[in-house]
């Protein structure tokens, strides 16, 4: 026989082992290792087995012993849901991932416009609904401990031990959950340690139950066929389940499987990969089948072997004990213990998340509004809130256990919980399938359904005279026969469970529907509704609802640091900044950014709270017409199409403009070329005409005197020289204009250049010109091409010689320095250039007086080109009397000079 102390020791060792497993898993997850196990479909499927609690482990056998096959409804419902994963679960998991949902309350509140009212309602309903369930776990563990404490009776009703044991079990579970579940505030609400521990416990409880089952079938009964014979011979050997109970229980268990906070936690929140769901769709029904396979044999053998008063809920323990199999009984006890602990841990964790996110945080925000912008970590508040919530929930469970007397059948208590959480179903399904569902409808349906459930199921569970007086049971509330808790509307004869489930769920659904179709949703509700219902079309494009100003970024950063932690928040912000293409700068609070931040926060504190926190900083949510249109597919597409068209047409207009400019330029160039050609032709034609005429005279007229011949030949010669010079000039100009000329830059003395130019010009001309110079100022060293510069000076001096119309022509050549420039001025005492022609002197073929000059009018054009190439400037100035040309040359250091000259 196992003593109580041995039992406690084994339990402690088992719990320590679980701790170790969870700790190793958390550490592996932190280091990014072990993903193959932590994120495997196997662990996902096993974690779903959190559905099978002590109710399954102990209660199912008791249930079968009392009501035959009815127990199997509790497993058929979830099997149906899993096999039909494509209909509901696939959608739920996708929404949960897309919206980063943290709990079932979060999902429903987010769907109905991030309503905190709904979140609070669902949280309270979940806490109330799950309390009996936690009491059930306490009761089962207490009962099983009492079996070992008082082995003689085998009835499992030793009150003095039960009370103490229940308290210690509750305290132990609370400590375990607090230590485990709230060590840190995970950004994404995933608890790898817990999930892996739950998976281990799933294996333990399955093995334990199957071991007891195998012992019963092959060890006691002696084989499968003998067991079947025993079943048919037993008091539960015939099908006795009423059709209404059968249907109602399958429906309510299927509903609870989706709505239970702990199921939602492991199925949706902890889901890592949507494909795991598809694997679980056959693997989890297989688990359920395995765990419910031996229930009936154990119940039948228990009924046969155990004394009449024995508690059938404990057959799993008492049958092996009565056969002297204390080792097997120990294993069974561990199985039951692990079913109870894993359920309590995950359920309280899920509920505490809901409580802290939807009740404590909103209250805290309301009480400390100015503090929301202060720095400091709000995560402490969240974690403390969660720990207190865990203690509160387990305390409630303990009190329910004490209040209900700890005597009810486990299955009956479990069904009360199922009925309570099943009230979420209409709002949940309506929310994800029907865009017309509104917040008003959800509030109405949920509240009325919950009240009916309380009145017909929860309160009567305490027995007549406890919560509801015996008179209310008999005559109805306020004496109205219509309001009897087990015969609403005067319809009697229904099974109480079926009665409660039927009325609460149907009135809930009906009100939800009717109020929804007659109320009008807010814009945010409509946006969220479209996102949820069309999750498979819209999962990447969130509704944008924030209009933020530049100044908000810092406040947002401070707030996020407090919720996400400094490092995580900074990483998130810099990632977003990088996405916006900003480096070393905070991200611009665009609507997209604020939306992403809200999602991130929602993963930690829930949608409604995140929404409220951001609202406090940014100051109100604005839903623009564009957002609403974006929800309506068609309008959005048209909008985008037209904006794309606009951009295209703008582009086209710009291109057309550029083309127009280019065309204008080309036309101008073409005109210039025509002009140039006609002028050239004209210039060439004049000398050609005279050459032709005089050569004709020489050829055709006989008897010309030698003197005449010489004169005509001289004319022809001088005209060809003029032509050659013209062609030379043209060539020179074209070379200069194309920038093909190579300058031979070196250090020269300005004086030498001027000297050379003056000498050359005077030598080639018959006219006499008085040239005045100031030799001292000419002593300047320049880095330049001396030959080209001389060419310019020659041209200027020659021009003065040719065109100066003064009686005694005189030319002043003055050199002066101005800053970094040398200015060489050529001033004559003639009448200068007429004002109207001053603009043209530097143009090609520009001649003031065609008759007077002999040049082609290219000289000054060439000068201008050369000076420009030398990095200087030439201009004509008229100063009252006389013409004045000024050549400006840069007078800089030699290196710069070289650079300046290079591109030529």
């Amino acid at each position, binding site marked *: 026989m196992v003593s109580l102390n041995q039992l406690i020791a084994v339990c402690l060792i088992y719990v320590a082992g679980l701790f170790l497993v969870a700790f190793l898993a958390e550490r592996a997850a932190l280091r990014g290792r072990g993903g*193959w196990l932590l994120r*495997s*479909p*196997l662990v996902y*499927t*096993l974690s779903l087995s959190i559905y099978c609690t002590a109710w399954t482990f102990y209660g199912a056998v008791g249930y079968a012993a009392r009501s*035959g*096959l009815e127990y*199997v409804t509790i497993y*058929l419902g979830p*099997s*149906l849901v899993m*096999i*039909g994963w*494509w*209909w509901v679960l696939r959608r739920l998991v996708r929404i949960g991932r897309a919206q980063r949902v943290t709990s079932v309350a979060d999902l429903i509140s987010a769907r109905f416009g991030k309503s905190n009212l709904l979140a609070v309602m669902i949280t309270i309903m979940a806490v109330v609904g799950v309390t009996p369930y936690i009491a059930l776990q306490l009761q089962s563990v207490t009962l099983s401990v009492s079996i070992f404490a008082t082995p003689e009776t085998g009835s499992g009703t030793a009150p003095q031990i039960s009370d103490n044991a229940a308290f210690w079990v509750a305290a132990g579970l609370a400590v375990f959950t607090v230590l485990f579940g709230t060590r840190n505030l995970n950004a994404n609400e995933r608890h790898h340690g817990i999930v892996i521990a739950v998976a281990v416990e799933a*294996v333990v409880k*399955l*093995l334990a139950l*199957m071991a007891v089952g195998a012992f019963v079938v092959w060890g006691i009964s002696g084989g499968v066929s003998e067991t*079947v014979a025993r*079943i*048919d011979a*037993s008091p*539960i*050997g*015939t*099908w*006795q*389940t*009423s*059709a209404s109970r*059968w*249907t109602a229980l*399958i429906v309510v268990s299927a509903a609870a499987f989706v709505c239970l906070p702990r199921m939602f936690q492991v199925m949706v929140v902890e889901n890592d990969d949507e*494909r795991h769901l*598809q*694997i679980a*769709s*056959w*693997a*989890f*029904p*297989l*688990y359920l*089948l*395995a765990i419910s*396979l031996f229930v*009936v044999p154990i119940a039948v053998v228990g009924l046969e072997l155990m004394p009449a008063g024995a508690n059938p809920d404990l057959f799993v323990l008492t049958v092996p004990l009565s056969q002297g199999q204390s080792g097997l009984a120990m294993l069974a006890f561990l199985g039951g213990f692990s079913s109870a602990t894993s359920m309590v841990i995950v359920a309280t964790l899920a509920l505490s998340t809901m409580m802290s996110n939807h009740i404590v945080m909103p209250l805290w925000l309301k009480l400390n509004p100015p503090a929301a912008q202060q720095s400091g970590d709000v995560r402490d508040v969240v974690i403390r809130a969660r720990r207190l919530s865990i203690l509160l929930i387990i305390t409630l469970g303990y009190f329910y256990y004490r209040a209900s007397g700890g005597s009810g059948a486990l299955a009956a208590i479990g069904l009360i919980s199922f009925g309570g959480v099943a009230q979420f179903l209409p709002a949940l399904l309506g929310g994800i399938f029907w865009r017309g569902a509104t917040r008003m409808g959800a509030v109405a349906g949920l509240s009325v359904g919950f009240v009916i459930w309380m009145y017909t199921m929860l309160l009567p569970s305490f027995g007549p005279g406890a919560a509801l007086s015996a008179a209310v049971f008999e005559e109805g509330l306020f004496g109205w026969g219509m309001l009897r808790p087990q015969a609403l509307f005067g319809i009697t004869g229904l099974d109480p469970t079926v009665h409660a489930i039927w009325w609460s769920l149907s009135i809930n659904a009906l009100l939800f529907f009717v109020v929804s179709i007659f109320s009008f949703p807010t814009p945010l509700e409509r946006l969220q509704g479209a996102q949820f219902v069309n999750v498979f079309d819209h999962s990447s494009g969130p509704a944008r609802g924030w209009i933020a100003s530049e100044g908000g970024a810092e406040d947002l950063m401070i707030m996020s640091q407090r919720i996400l932690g400094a490092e995580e928040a900074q990483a998130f912000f810099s990632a977003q900044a990088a996405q916006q293409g900003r480096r070393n700068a905070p991200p611009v609070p665009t609507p997209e950014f604020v939306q992403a931040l809200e999602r991130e926060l929602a993963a930690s504190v829930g949608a409604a709270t995140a929404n409220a926190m951001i609202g406090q900083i940014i100051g109100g949510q604005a839903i623009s017409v564009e957002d609403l249109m974006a929800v309506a597919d068609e309008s959005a*597409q048209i909008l985008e199409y037209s904006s794309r068209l606009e951009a295209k047409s703008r582009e086209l207009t710009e291109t057309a403009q550029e083309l127009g400019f280019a065309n204008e330029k080309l036309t101008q160039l073409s005109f210039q070329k025509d002009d140039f050609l006609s002028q050239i032709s004209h210039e060439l034609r004049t000398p050609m005409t005279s050459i032709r005429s005089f050569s004709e005279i020489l050829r055709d007229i006989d008897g010309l005197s030698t003197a005449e011949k010489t004169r005509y030949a001289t004319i022809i010669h001088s005209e060809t020289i003029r032509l050659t010079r013209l062609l030379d000039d043209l060539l020179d100009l074209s070379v200069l204009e194309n920038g093909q000329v190579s300058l031979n830059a070196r250090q020269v003395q300005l004086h030498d250049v001027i000297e050379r130019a003056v000498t050359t010009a005077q030598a080639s001309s018959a006219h006499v010109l008085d040239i005045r110079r100031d030799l001292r100022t000419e002593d300047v060293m320049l880095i330049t091409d001396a030959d080209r510069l001389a060419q310019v000076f020659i041209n200027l001096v020659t021009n003065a010689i040719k065109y100066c119309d003064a009686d005694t022509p005189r030319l002043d050549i003055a050199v002066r320095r101005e800053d970094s420039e040398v200015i060489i001025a050529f001033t004559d005492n003639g009448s200068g250039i007429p004002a109207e022609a001053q603009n043209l002197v530097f143009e090609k073929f520009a001649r003031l007086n065609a008759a007077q000059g002999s040049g082609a009018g290219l000289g000054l054009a060439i000068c201008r080109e050369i000076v420009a190439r030398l990095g200087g400037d030439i201009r004509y100035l008229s100063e009252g009397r006389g013409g004045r040309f000024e050549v400006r040359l840069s007078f800089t250091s030699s290196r710069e000079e070289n650079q300046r000259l290079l591109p030529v």
Partner: protein
Amino acid sequence: MPEARLFLERRSYRRRRMMDAVRMLPLVCTLLWLVVPTMWPNGLQDDTQTALSSALWYLFMIWILAIAATFALWRRIRRYEGTGEAAVDTATQAAEP
């Protein structure tokens, strides 16, 4: 927007029919589990009774068939998607210890 195609090639056609089966299966199971047992005599109306063992056989056989069908459908759909994972095998082992 491209118009939806009226006919599909063989492979996509097969895949869509598999998805039809996935959608249909829970409805069939509902019928067999939820509706059929309610028609059995439950010992309250008359003296012809259903033995518990035969009810047990019936329910568990459907259970096994449903699991097998879901498993087969999952295998086929996965093959059409062409995504093989090693983790699948471990899941198979674990769910039936």
